[in-house]
């Protein structure tokens, strides 16, 4: 089947009334949590996973994906109007976006953020559609050794792209992998670290970990911070872009889209990092870098296009290799497994309706989001007035009930409480939770493939280096590690994160 036949198949799936409705729900929820600070897509997708048990898997994924890319749209609204990142990936949007708003150009900033995101979203989705079949064809021949090496590469990629110390990011991955060992060992049937607790014998559900270290920890960190929200203006003003705006923003949108689409493909990449990189590049390339930080439209257009392009293209490794690029796609992968769909290269051939339906729904969702975020901006501005002190009790209710409903057990709520405390402790020490969650989710797969590869090779660990594909992947991983310790690269990496 060629691309157009595939897209036609996807269109048939995506435009059923039910799927359109859930796509809209996902887009609305995504915008909502994007706008509200203190609630991110990881915690929201985790909270809603139990709700999707009853849905058709395609419908469930369409909605959950909508939350992820919808959050990229909503986050920019808060960044521009309140100078707070509604979403981590809109931190840099606030720099110039808020200045534009103070100059009475909030409407233009919002318009370029939404239109840039729309363009980037469509390009990112089409890239996904074009790349996925090829990549899946390559991956279908992978054995245990190749999968192990691929996951090592993925986990190391997460380290390179984490913002803090490399040592700490590696430590978090190891910690996550160790937590993933809890439960029954699939090879021997031995119980590991369960202490006889029945609820632990199947391992800890990743939703519990995600809600703890992302949802609850975030509440613990924010609840005592006095809140200052300076809504720059209740009136957004005209949304129309002038000829000069378009001229300045178009190249930034194109560059941001390209950069974001590429970075989203990398493991550990995704929306957050690509927006930082796009801002740095726009500033470097500009003839007037002094305008940045004072309301330059390129400073909004570049990062906003980049984060949305990356949000779309980060679905590529998850859908084609079965390896999540970041915490949110890891949760979406979990959603597939709940519905007994093993993520990996075979998804495209065994569930073409799910795969292509999801892709077409992303195109539709992006158009819905522009409509939701531009003409209806007034509704969302009102939501910005909800203070955090009213928001967090509501989040708490969703977290506890969500965790309970996984196994209908209050034990999981207590376990989540433990992970919330662990997450807070880790944040005190400047450890990031994202590599931990990624390690935790990949842990059982890493171990399974490692042990299977070793069993097949009768204990000969050189199998990882003698099989050409596996060796190449490990070579890339070693290269990544080497690059990390080079002082020059370290410096630019630190610079990029500081800006």
């Amino acid at each position, binding site marked *: 089947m060629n691309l157009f036949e595939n897209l036609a198949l996807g269109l048939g799936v995506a435009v059923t009334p039910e799927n359109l409705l859930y796509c809209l729900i996902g887009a609305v929820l995504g915008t909502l949590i994007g706008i509200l600070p203190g609630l991110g897509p990881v915690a929201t997708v985790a909270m809603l996973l139990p709700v999707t048990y009853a849905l058709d898997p395609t419908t469930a994924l369409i909605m959950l994906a909508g939350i992820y890319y919808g959050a990229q749209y909503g986050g920019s609204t808060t960044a521009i109007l309140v100078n707070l990142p509604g979403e981590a990936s809109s931190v840099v949007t606030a720099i110039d976006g808020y200045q534009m708003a103070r100059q009475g150009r909030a409407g233009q900033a919002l318009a370029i953020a939404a239109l840039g995101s729309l363009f980037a979203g469509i390009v990112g989705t089409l890239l996904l559609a074009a790349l996925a079949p090829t990549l899946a064809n390559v991956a279908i021949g992978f054995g245990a050794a190749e999968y192990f090496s691929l996951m090592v590469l993925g986990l190391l990629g997460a380290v390179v792209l984490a913002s803090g110390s490399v040592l700490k990011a590696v430590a978090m991955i190891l910690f996550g992998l160790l937590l993933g060992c809890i439960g029954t060992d699939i090879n021997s049937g031995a119980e590991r*670290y369960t202490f006889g607790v029945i609820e632990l014998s199947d391992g800890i559900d990743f939703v519990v970990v995600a809600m703890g270290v992302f949802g609850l920890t975030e509440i613990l960190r924010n609840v005592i911070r006095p809140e200052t929200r300076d809504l720059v203006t209740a009136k957004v003003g005209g949304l129309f872009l002038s000829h000069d705006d378009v001229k300045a923003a178009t190249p930034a949108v194109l560059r941001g889209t390209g950069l974001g689409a590429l970075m989203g493909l990398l493991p550990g990449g995704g929306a957050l990092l690509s927006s930082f990189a796009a801002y740095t590049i726009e500033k470097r390339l500009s003839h007037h870098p002094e305008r940045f930080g004072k309301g330059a439209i390129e400073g909004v257009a570049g990062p906003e296009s980049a984060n949305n392009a990356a949000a779309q293209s980060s679905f590529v490794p998850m859908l084609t290799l079965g390896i999540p690029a970041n915490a949110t796609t890891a949760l979406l992968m979990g959603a597939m497994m709940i519905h007994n769909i093993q993520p990996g290269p075979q998804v495209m051939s065994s569930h073409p309706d799910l795969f292509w339906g999801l892709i077409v729904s992303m195109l539709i969702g992006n158009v819905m989001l522009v409509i939701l975020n531009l003409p209806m901006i007034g509704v969302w501005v009102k939501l910005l007035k909800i203070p955090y002190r009213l928001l967090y009790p509501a989040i708490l209710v969703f977290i506890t009930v969500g965790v309970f409903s996984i196994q209908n057990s209050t034990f999981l709520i207590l376990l989540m409480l433990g992970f919330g405390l662990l997450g807070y402790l880790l944040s005190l020490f400047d450890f990031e939770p994202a590599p931990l969650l990624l390690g935790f989710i990949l842990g059982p797969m890493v171990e399974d493939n490692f042990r299977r590869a070793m069993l097949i090779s009768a204990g000969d660990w050189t199998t990882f280096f003698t099989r050409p594909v596996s060796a190449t992947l490990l070579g890339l991983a070693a290269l990544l590690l080497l690059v990390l310790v080079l002082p020059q690269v370290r410096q630019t990496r630190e610079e990029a994160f500081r800006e």
Partner: protein
Amino acid sequence: MNRFVRKDALAGLFLMLSAGFFLLAGRGLAFGTFDMMGPGFVPVTLALALLALGFVLMVGALAGDGTGQRIDLPPGVFRAIAVIFAAILAFVLLLHPAGYVVSVAVMIIVAGLASTERRLGEILIAALLLSGITAVVFIELLGVPMPLWPAVLQ
């Protein structure tokens, strides 16, 4: 500042203690050999690596000059954490005797007290509205198996 309260020194110690826990609790798991790995092979190897990383982190912090190593603990944070924990515990303990509506309302009221900007009237209204709305959504619509009302009333 005391060398031992530096951020990375404590971070390293924390990693070593965690690794120690996994080693100690996993000492009964068979390690096995390369061609026949036991259930302990992977966790023990990982824990040893974590132990080494924690050691490197701690030694590095103790040897460094200690700039940027202060742990940022905002005043009142322990009280806030304790209050949030109490709120969730109250929900867990009350759920079966008192039912969803009562236990969620209690959780919201207690949790609301954690904020430095709390206003009692607001919290009470939020508790009333949220417990009602979420009861309909979660229990009536989504069918989460929780008792709605106190056991004595049923």
